[in-house]
């Protein structure tokens, strides 16, 4: 017996429902695939860049961004464990007068050749003698030359401090030709021309033959000053991967929810379709089709939709990834991998996994309806009508309540491997629990509905009360998508609002001035600080120094910010109570609590200027800028402890009668054109929020997808229902209802079903939003935020969704109503 046309053909007969299920799966798979492909590309590109930079190094000595004493190099190079040591002074440098920055490596080419030969500069044919050592030469990678529109022989101006230095491009770096930001110079020249005499930022070590990196690492670490660590070269790649991992996992889970919705749509379509085909199945069973075969064929229907969705999904996913890389960059706009140009690579295994996920969603969606259909007793089904057999009924309210309780418990689970597993579990429990509770909620709402109004409305209400199963199938799709969209909206609104407030608190001054964004090479020296304070119209100027610290091996560096601080921390966005002490204090960001376990009131040892200094943790502040942790210290304390007199930024309070524009112009004129950047806090805030919005562009996209999926669920359910209810519509026509009235009834039904879904979805979404804020964000990014519910947009969204659902129900039912009433009633008799 050829059964394929009977079963798989049924997919074609209910085109709309199949199409929506298919689209939902495509979207879920495509988003997941895109996120995966983009990050894989970015990480592999990032890792490749790091490998070029690390070369044959077995170990790397790293320290704070400001560097460490160069004598560490002499010390390590003379050790028997070390075959070759390559000293590096790395700076971020800014092309004078522009926003372009480059990664400048000051190297000793003699040592470089034996550790990281890929970084060896190659003088152009026209370069002069000793160009690789010359104090006026710089080597730019081929891609950097192209990006800057320069070639060998040209000159380029860089900013050093607030001065401008002119260098000649003497050649390229053939081993790192694709690196768009790489520049190499002799280390002595970088030290002298960028005022870093005596400093190194990294030493690459190649170990002597037979020396194990582990043993050498501990032996050498003991020789190093505080804050200077020995790492394996992979550590930096791991840190980058970890840094972006939480972001990546969050996006992937959003895609998973889309996929879940797709599976759910398959479920609703199959459930209704199975009901319609009860008689058909009864015949087949009576003709001898085994129960298992029927089950298998029905699963195959779901599998087919899932497989098709999976295949199209991965194709679309790669397309999306390609587009995202071109438009947003490797971090989807989140800023983790600036300056990279990742190339998309096709990964067969990963792609297969995503196709399989689509397939799985299809099969899972078809499972329950298939099992129900297979359990039908043929004789009974042949006799009875089909409506009574719709799934649903009262659902599983106790299980639902249990799941909600479990979600509360899951929130208490600490992060596993730095991932908020508990948070994700809680979200899943919340969704599943609300779906289970939905029938009970629908029944409750039906009881509350007034027994008045036009006949179409009363019919719709009666139907919801009598056969909630119909509505529940449609409402569950709406619930899932509304919950997702509402949760995202609440989380993003809270985040944005908190960031905005935080920016207000952090930027209280009238003007901000900085020596470019390249903080290692652009700074304000003491003379300039004095001149800034003396500018006419400047009432008060306070300065900020940025550095970072290495506190633990394998962990990303922690930002160190030195600026004038009030003793009680009142000029910081504090979280919780401060405990100012007597001695020098530090104020730590929330990430320091999570990552290093520091507590307020504790005394911690910080490696400042190569020595450990005991400092009192006076309080915790909120920091949305650095998820790897930040430490704030009073500028006077910092200067006393380190002797570092340079600063990077200045905050300017204007005198009462001063004109901001005029003062800004006077400040800018203190250095050459394009060297000092002066901004008003409003501009900085606007820029920050613009970056914020770009980061969340992907989540906005997901919200839109969620809405489409929800509407698709309503339309698909009603299309299937309407087809199943042709006899009912015929009967209603016989009883004297006009087509218009039946249309209104359908609209009411759609609105009611959607209304139930939206109401439940908003509740579930609110709860999920809280989980996202309190658990997922806190554990992923280590920052807290204040709850901010966008009531107006949620209300607008809910109302719009109900109206659209009504419209979808009417459109779906129209075809069924078109049929002749008499014919419809006669149909099966």
């Amino acid at each position, binding site marked *: 017996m050829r059964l394929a046309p009977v079963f798989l053909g049924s997919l074609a007969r209910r085109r709309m429902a199949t199409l929506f299920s298919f689209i939902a799966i495509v979207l879920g798979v495509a988003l997941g695939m895109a996120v995966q492909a983009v990050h894989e590309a970015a990480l592999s590109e990032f890792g490749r860049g790091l490998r070029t930079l690390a070369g044959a190094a077995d170990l790397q000595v790293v320290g704070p961004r400001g560097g460490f004493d*160069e004598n560490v190099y002499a010390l390590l190079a003379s050790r028997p464990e070390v075959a070759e040591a390559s000293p590096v002074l790395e700076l971020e440098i800014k092309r004078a007068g522009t926003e372009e920055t480059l990664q400048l490596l000051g190297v000793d080419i003699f040592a470089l050749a034996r550790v990281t030969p890929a970084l060896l500069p190659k003088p152009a044919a026209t370069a002069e*003698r000793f160009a690789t050592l010359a104090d006026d030469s710089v080597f730019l990678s081929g891609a950097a030359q192209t990006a800057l529109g320069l070639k060998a022989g040209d000159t380029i101006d860089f900013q050093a401090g607030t001065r401008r230095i002119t260098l000649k491009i003497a050649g390229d770096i053939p081993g790192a030709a694709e690196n768009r930001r790489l520049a190499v110079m002799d280390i002595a*020249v970088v030290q002298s021309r960028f005022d870093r005499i005596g400093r190194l930022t990294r030493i690459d070590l190649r170990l002597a033959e037979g020396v194990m990196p582990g043993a050498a690492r501990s032996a050498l670490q003991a020789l190093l000053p505080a804050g200077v660590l020995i790492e394996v070269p992979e550590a930096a790649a791991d840190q980058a991967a970890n840094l972006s991992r939480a972001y990546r996992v969050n996006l992937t889970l959003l895609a998973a929810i889309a996929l879940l919705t797709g599976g759910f749509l398959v479920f609703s379509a199959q459930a209704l379709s199975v009901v319609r085909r009860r008689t058909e199945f009864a015949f087949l069973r009576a003709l001898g089709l085994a129960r298992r075969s029927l089950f298998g064929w029905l699963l195959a229907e779901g599998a087919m939709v899932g497989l098709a969705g999976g295949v199209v999904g991965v194709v679309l996913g790669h397309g999306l990834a390609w587009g995202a890389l071109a438009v947003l960059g490797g971090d989807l706009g989140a800023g983790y991998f600036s300056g990279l140009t990742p190339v998309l690579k096709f990964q067969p295994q990963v792609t297969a996994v995503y196709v399989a996920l689509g397939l799985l969603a299809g099969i899972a969606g078809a499972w329950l309806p298939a099992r129900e259909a297979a359990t039908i007793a043929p004789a009974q089904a042949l006799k009875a009508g089909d409506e009574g057999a719709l799934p649903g009924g009262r659902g599983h309210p106790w299980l639902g309540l249990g799941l909600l309780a479990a979600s509360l418990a899951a929130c208490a689970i600490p992060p596993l491997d730095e991932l908020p597993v508990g948070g994700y579990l809680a979200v899943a429990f919340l969704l599943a629990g609300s779906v289970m509770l939905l029938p009970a909620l629908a029944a409750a709402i039906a009881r509350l509905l007034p027994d008045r109004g036009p006949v179409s409305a009363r019919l719709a209400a009666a139907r919801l009360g009598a056969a909630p199963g119909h509505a529940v199938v449609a409402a569950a799709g709406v619930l899932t998508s509304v919950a997702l969209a509402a949760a995202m909206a609440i989380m993003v609104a809270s985040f944005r609002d908190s960031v905005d407030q935080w920016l207000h608190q952090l930027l209280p001054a009238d003007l901000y001035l900085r020596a470019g964004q390249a903080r290692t090479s652009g700074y304000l020296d003491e003379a300039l600080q004095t001149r800034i304070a003396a500018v006419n119209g400047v009432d008060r100027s306070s300065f900020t120094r940025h550095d970072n610290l290495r506190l633990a091996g394998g962990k990303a560096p922690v930002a160190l910010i030195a600026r004038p601080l009030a003793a009680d921390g009142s000029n910081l966005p504090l979280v919780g109570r401060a405990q100012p002490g007597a001695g020098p204090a530090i104020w730590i960001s929330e990430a320091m609590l999570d990552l290093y376990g520091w507590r307020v009131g504790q005394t911690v040892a910080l490696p400042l200027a190569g020595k450990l200094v005991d400092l009192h943790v006076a309080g915790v502040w909120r920091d949305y800028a650095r998820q790897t942790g930040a430490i704030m210290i009073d500028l006077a304390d910092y200067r006393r402890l380190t002797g570092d007199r340079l600063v990077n930024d200045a905050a300017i309070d204007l005198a009462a009668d001063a004109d901001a524009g005029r003062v800004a112009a006077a400040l800018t004129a203190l250095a050459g054109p394009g060297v000092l950047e002066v901004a008003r806090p409003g501009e900085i805030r606007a820029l920050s929020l613009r970056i914020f919005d770009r980061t969340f562009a992907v989540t906005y996209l997901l919200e839109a997808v969620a809405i489409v999926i929800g509407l698709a669920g309503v339309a698909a359910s009603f299309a299937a229902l309407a087809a199943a209810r042709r006899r009912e519509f015929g009967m209603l026509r016989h009883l004297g209802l006009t087509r218009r009235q039946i249309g209104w009834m359908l609209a009411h039904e759609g609105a009611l079903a959607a209304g139930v879904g939206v109401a439940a979805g908003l509740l579930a979404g609110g709860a999920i939003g809280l989980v996202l804020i309190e658990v997922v964000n806190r554990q992923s990014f280590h920052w807290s935020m204040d709850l901010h519910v966008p009531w107006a947009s949620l209300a607008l969204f809910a109302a719009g969704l109900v109206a659209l659902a009504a419209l979808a129900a009417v459109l779906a039912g129209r075809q069924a109503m078109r049929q002749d009433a008499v014919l419809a009633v006669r149909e099966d008799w």
Partner: protein
Amino acid sequence: MERRDFLLALAGFAASAAGAREVVEFARVLPGRKLIFPADHGAHPDFRTEWWYATGWLNLSEGRPIGFQTTFFRVRTGIGEDNASAFAPRQLILAHAAIADPALGRLRHDQRSARVGFGRAGFATDRTRVWVGDWRFEQDGGLYRAALRSQEFAYDLNLVPNGPPMLNGLAGFSTKASDPRHASYYYSRPQLTVDGSVTLAGRPQQVTGQAWLDHEWSSELLADGAQGWDWIGINLDDGSALMAFRLRGDREAALWAAASLRRADGSTQIFPPAAIAFEPLRQWRSPRTGITYPVEWRVRIEQRVFLLQVLMDDQELDSRRSTGAIYWEGAVRLLEGGREIGRGYLEMTGYGERIRLG
């Protein structure tokens, strides 16, 4: 003498002499300056370039002969003279080492380079002492010690001189062209008795032999029109020693030549350019680089006619990866009247491209 200047390009200086900037005043080589020892055994950092160049024949324990080469260069770059950075590359130390083993049929060679500072490389000015990484060449009392280690080979040799230095040219003032501006201070220490150990293929063994040391310093680059040079330093069996070189133009013709012969009694005879002739007899083509080198020579010094025969044909040293320079430096036998009368080293440069100096 510029014969080895090109090696100064080591470590990736693609160079053109035309672009050289003269920001510092290098010390000048002037006739009439008397060489004073032991001070002149040490480095002369005011001059642009300087080298200690030891070559010789060693007998392995099984009696088989091999050749060895140890070269330490000191280069004053003229760069970073007023740079406060401890990394300022004012002085560089570069070193080449090679073993010529007929059993292998080609050279084992390696090189090191570093800027002076942080104890990574350096030199002494009061005696011969120069090092880069764990490679060193130094004078200790009456003897020299060369200790080098590489992946493929290692050696630790004591070189003992048997008399005072042989001053080449005019009491150590050695001209390289008709223009006396192109000159160096140059003395040799021939007939060094060698003992020590050589490690080949991981197996150390005791060796003895005879070696030759050149020490030379100058500030002038190669004369215009010079394409390369040929040089020999031979310890003769009768206790005498012969040094000869010629500078070639782009044709075979010699632009300049010089020779010194120290007799066993210690007296030294210096020969004028006209008394010296180098005549290639047999060619060998390198399978790696395609460059053809003369590997058998007739050398005429006044009336005497010598024949040079190489220990093995392939003693080409390819350092293109670091310098772009390819040269031939190897062990040779000196014959007179069909009979071997001495052993030493032959150096030939400029047979591929013109040697680009510094």
